[in-house]
């Protein structure tokens, strides 16, 4: 039998149904795996007691014939989701000691469907970053890093901001994890770790109880090792929530049923503007390979144009900081988290926020404050929102001639901690292929497609029409099967 930590979600559900093992055994194997990955600094908070208690309850439900669609599956939660009674940090010093009195809608739905919580995993502070290196709790190292744990030759990043979620799955210490994606924070780490990640259509998953970064862009999604698992987990995460004013009241399909493998006649858009300067030759080759795979399965490639692609990053780096500066105003030392005293109320605010925010978060709040300040609002913020409209129009136009779009997930294989760090703008370029999708509110996913010459994972991205996650998943599984990436990271639990 496959080790319990190497199962897929689908395989684990099967084994549980056939009584080959219990949810408690599955949880125990994962709790040991969580301990084994400690050198990689993946978990901010481990919850082994909760995991075992939830697994025990799951076995009891299954015995009564009441097992839910994810019953007994151990997962990790990005530490951006509020979890009742369990510390929620957002990777920030400013949330020191914060224990939510409520559960986020998305995690409550996962527990409703029987999932088992292993703990809360690392991220970039307030989800602002592309490498999971800016949290107050330290950097996460990818299990793909060559060398023995703690004595790595290169400390490879897991991507970000959902880097802990990506690393924990790649290291075989959880069957799946929740992520959030504001500009690529699910898809880029999935690409960097050889895992699957979906950013659903804006409005599919409730944002209620998720620490806000940029509300018009933030969206939660599943991270797993297979496309089928992503379909299983996505179904539990989606659904209408009256507590989120942007939640869409639509039926949630059985995403797994969409995985027919039949993509004959489907038109796959290939955006010419994504052949950017600096795109590595091996990624270009992989992209072409991806087109071939889809052609062999009967799909029809179509060249499309997304003319405003090159302006997406600039628009994003106005809109996201603007929203962040407003969202993060709530951290004032009064209601939760850190307080640093001062002589007056204003001084207390300034001292608390000065001490509590890390340098990337501070940089983005200041940019946001500036672009929203009197005299600059039109020149920066409104201009960026107009460009955002044009980017959305580009996609509307493109989807008249294609059904799904194929691109690389990131312009290179993952870098090592310490590289690319001195220039914030250079760091932002990691997100060049993922950011436009958030601006347009579309669903997209990253699927593992191969390894680079350096032995590190490469992913391909699929982009769908609004609320057409089913086509996305169907095509994603075709890519996954054709690529058939079986390589494991140098370290697995």
């Amino acid at each position: 039998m496959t080790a319990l930590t190497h199962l897929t979600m689908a395989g684990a559900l099967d084994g549980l149904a056939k009584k080959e093992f219990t949810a408690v055994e599955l949880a125990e194997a994962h709790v040991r795996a969580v301990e084994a990955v400690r050198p990689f600094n993946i978990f901010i908070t481990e919850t082994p007691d909760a995991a075992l208690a939830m697994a025990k309850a799951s076995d009891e439900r299954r015995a009564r014939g009441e097992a839910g669609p994810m019953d007994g599956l151990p997962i990790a939660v990005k530490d951006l989701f509020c979890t009742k009674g369990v510390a929620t940090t957002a990777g920030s010093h400013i949330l020191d000691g914060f224990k939510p009195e409520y559960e986020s809608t998305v995690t409550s739905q996962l527990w409703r469907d029987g999932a088992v919580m292993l703990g809360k995993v690392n991220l970039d502070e307030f989800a602002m970053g592309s490498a999971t290196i800016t949290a107050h709790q330290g950097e996460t190292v990818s299990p793909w890093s060559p060398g023995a744990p703690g004595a790595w030759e290169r400390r490879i990043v897991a991507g970000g901001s959902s880097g802990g979620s990506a690393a924990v799955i790649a290291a075989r210490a959880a069957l799946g994890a929740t992520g959030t994606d504001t500009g690529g924070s699910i898809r880029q780490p999935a690409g960097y770790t050889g895992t699957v990640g979906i950013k659903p259509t804006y409005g599919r998953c409730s944002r209620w109880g998720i620490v806000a970064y940029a509300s018009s862009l933030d969206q939660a999604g599943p991270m797993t090792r297979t496309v089928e698992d992503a379909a299983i987990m996505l179904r539990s995460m989606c659904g209408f929530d009256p507590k989120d004013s942007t939640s869409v009241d639509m039926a949630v399909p059985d995403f797994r049923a969409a995985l027919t493998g039949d993509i004959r006649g489907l038109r796959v858009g290939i955006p010419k503007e994504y052949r950017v300067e600096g795109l590595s030759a091996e990624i270009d080759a992989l992209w072409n390979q991806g087109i071939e795979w889809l052609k062999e399965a009967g799909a029809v490639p179509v060249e499309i144009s997304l003319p405003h692609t090159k302006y997406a990053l600039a628009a994003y780096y106005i809109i996201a900081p603007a929203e962040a500066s407003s969202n993060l105003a709530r951290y004032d030392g009064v209601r939760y988290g850190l307080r640093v005293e001062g002589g007056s109320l204003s001084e207390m605010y300034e001292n608390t926020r000065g001490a509590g925010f890390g340098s990337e978060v501070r940089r983005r709040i200041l940019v946001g404050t500036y672009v929203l300040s009197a005299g600059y609002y039109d020149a920066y913020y409104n201009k960026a929102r107009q460009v955002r409209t044009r980017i959305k129009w580009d996609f509307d136009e493109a989807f008249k001639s294609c059904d799904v779009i194929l691109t690389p997930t990131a312009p290179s294989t993952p870098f090592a901690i310490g590289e690319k760090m001195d220039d914030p703008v250079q760091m932002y370029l990691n997100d060049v292929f993922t950011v436009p999708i958030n601006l347009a509110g579309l669903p997209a996913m990253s699927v593992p497609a191969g390894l680079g010459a350096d032995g590190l994972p490469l992913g391909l991205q699929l982009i769908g029409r609004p609320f057409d996650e089913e086509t996305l998943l169907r095509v994603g599984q075709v890519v996954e099967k054709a690529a058939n990436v079986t390589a494991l990271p140098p370290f697995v639990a």
Partner: protein
Amino acid sequence: MSLDKATVAKIAHLARIKVPDGELESLAGELSQILTFVEQLNEVDTKDVPPMTSVAAQKLRRRKDAVTDGGYAPQVLSNGPETAESFYVVPKVVE
């Protein structure tokens, strides 16, 4: 676009973030770099293009302006750094 130290200090005050004097210079450089990067947006023709206000094709839902839940003062206050009775405690605001 290039920001000077005084402007950064002013923005930091607006954002209520204390920035040590020694960090203003380097921060001004970083912020200027970002603002220079985003200036490329001026190349885009946005005449008569509406600024996006909602990415989802739906209007905000409305509900009755009525109390539907509540009475959780202890839970609301439970994470406050300093509280007394049913209140948050802050430094004195009025003389």
